[in-house]
């Protein structure tokens, strides 16, 4: 059992770290988030049918709740210096946590709508609303990032192929 877990950690920690970073926008918090999710997985390891899905669900759920706590304390995640990346980081910081998570799921992890909805624990319609609102918000603050999306439609069905 322990060997399986350690193999899983070696193979997937990098991907989890990237997702966590996109969700939090903060390197230290991303590390903490990944460790928290892996610890939770270890505790239930013998009973997990799909560890990958479980860890991702923990990552998204914890990231959303953490972002809410930060917002209550009037703090914002700090983005990294880079060009498009920096622009994206600033834009993501202005989104609601679920909107941000929806974008990460759909554009970084390339999840289908149903997968993304399942991970976020929302229905398909809600996911579409979240994604559509997030894209519109991105378009307002960083139109370059959505240049190849806009023009198709402002509704999520058209925006996201």
């Amino acid at each position, binding site marked *: 059992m*322990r060997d399986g*877990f*350690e193999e899983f*950690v070696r193979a997937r*920690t*990098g991907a*989890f*770290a*990237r*997702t*966590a*970073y*996109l969700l939090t926008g903060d*390197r*230290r918090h*991303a*590390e903490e988030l*990944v*460790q928290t999710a*892996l*610890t*939770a997985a*270890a*505790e*239930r*390891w013998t009973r997990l049918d799909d560890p990958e899905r479980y860890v991702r669900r923990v990552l998204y759920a914890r990231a959303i709740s953490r972002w809410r706590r930060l917002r209550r304390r009037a703090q914002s995640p700090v983005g*990294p210096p*880079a*060009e*498009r*990346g920096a*622009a*994206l*980081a600033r834009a993501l910081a202005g989104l609601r946590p679920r909107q941000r998570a929806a*974008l*990460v799921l759909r*554009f*970084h992890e*390339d999840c289908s709508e149903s997968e993304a909805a399942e991970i976020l624990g929302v229905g398909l319609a809600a996911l579409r609303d979240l994604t559509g609102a997030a894209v519109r918000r*991105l378009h307002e603050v960083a139109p*370059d*990032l*959505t*240049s*190849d*999306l806009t023009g198709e439609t402002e509704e999520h069905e058209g925006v996201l192929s």
Partner: protein
Amino acid sequence: MSVLRDAFRELAEDAPEVRPPAGLYAAARRRRRERRAAAALLALAVLAVAVLIGWPRPGPERFGGDSAGLPDHLVLPSWDTATVHDSPAGPAAVAYSLGERNVQSDDEDFRIFSWWRHGHTVSSTTVVGLHEDVYRIARGGYTTGVDLSPDGRFLMVGGEALDLSTGRTRALPKLTGPRPQAGPSSTPYYGYGGVTTWSPEGTRVVVVDQSRVAVAGWPSGRIEWNATFPYQNYIGDAVIPEDGSAVALTLDDEIVVLNRDGTRRWSRSKHEPWLVSGRAAWRPDGRLVGLTREVNGPYRLAALDGATGAPVDIGAYPPVSAAMGMEVVAWRGDVAYAIVRHAVPGIYTQDEIPFPELVRLVPGAAAPEVVLKPPAGTEQLAVATVFVDARRATGAPEFGVNFYEYLGRGLNWACCPVVLIGFLVMVRKTVRWSTQV
């Protein structure tokens, strides 16, 4: 690939390299086990408290209240019965004890198991209200005893008088004069408590140790007289007449009557056989009532002249068979009321233990009449003798609530799993350490 996806990829490249700590799996599993154990413990504690609080209890209905008297029957108190100290319920009609099995008695050797109780009392006493079926537990001294005052208000406890109406104690009269000194051939004096008891109507109290006696008014506590007498190894019983003018002592092998100045009025061998017993043994007409018994025969009432010690007639009272002892506690005319201690086989041993009953002895009757029978297992019984011929109806008993019993027992039960888990953890660590070494 859209611009947005490219931006996400660029941003993700700045993600930190996460290195989970070594032993993450083991640490996580251990924390999970600890959390589960804590949750189970908490659930157990909650369940225990819920069961204890929700346990079916008799309702608060009481009976009587208008008239004082002995109840028709007695029951055993519940384990969480309130104490006289915390919830006094007024004068008692009856005091009885099951010895070490009376509720809220401490274990003789493992006092720590009942850490929440005051003192160390291995044999508590149950008192039952004079007007209502209110049960309370009295504790004090090593064994509490059942020396109830004739009016039922006070109980002799640990060398003091416990006021059952207030839960407070009152000091008994102090003995004066030099402390008892054993002779060279006598048993050394080591704090033998002697005897304290009431006069028949409860207007006086007598305190005796191995060489001193004091008689005082009650409840005033004012000393009426003191006297000393030669050191005695054993004081079995002390009886005074209602006027407190003398005291009759049952010693090792004789009965002695002392005057107020300590001089010996008369004495008789205890083996004649005369045995003075019970607070009402000295009748107002001057007869000192005792017991006579042939070898292996039943007890019978007999009498001596209190002034001279000469045998006098008392009439034909019914014999009391299979008794280990008898105390005359009250008179109504020529009808005697007595606590008879029947001999019954012991519960844990083959030794006989006394099972007391209150009986009425009517001259000319063929057998004693049982007036009050305590619950099975009772070893000591006393009644408020002023009300010995008054009866009141019995209703649902009211035991009160002893919060400290809930708290103490609950914590004790809650600690058991903690101690067990701690022990197992310690064993496991020891085994691990030894295998690693």
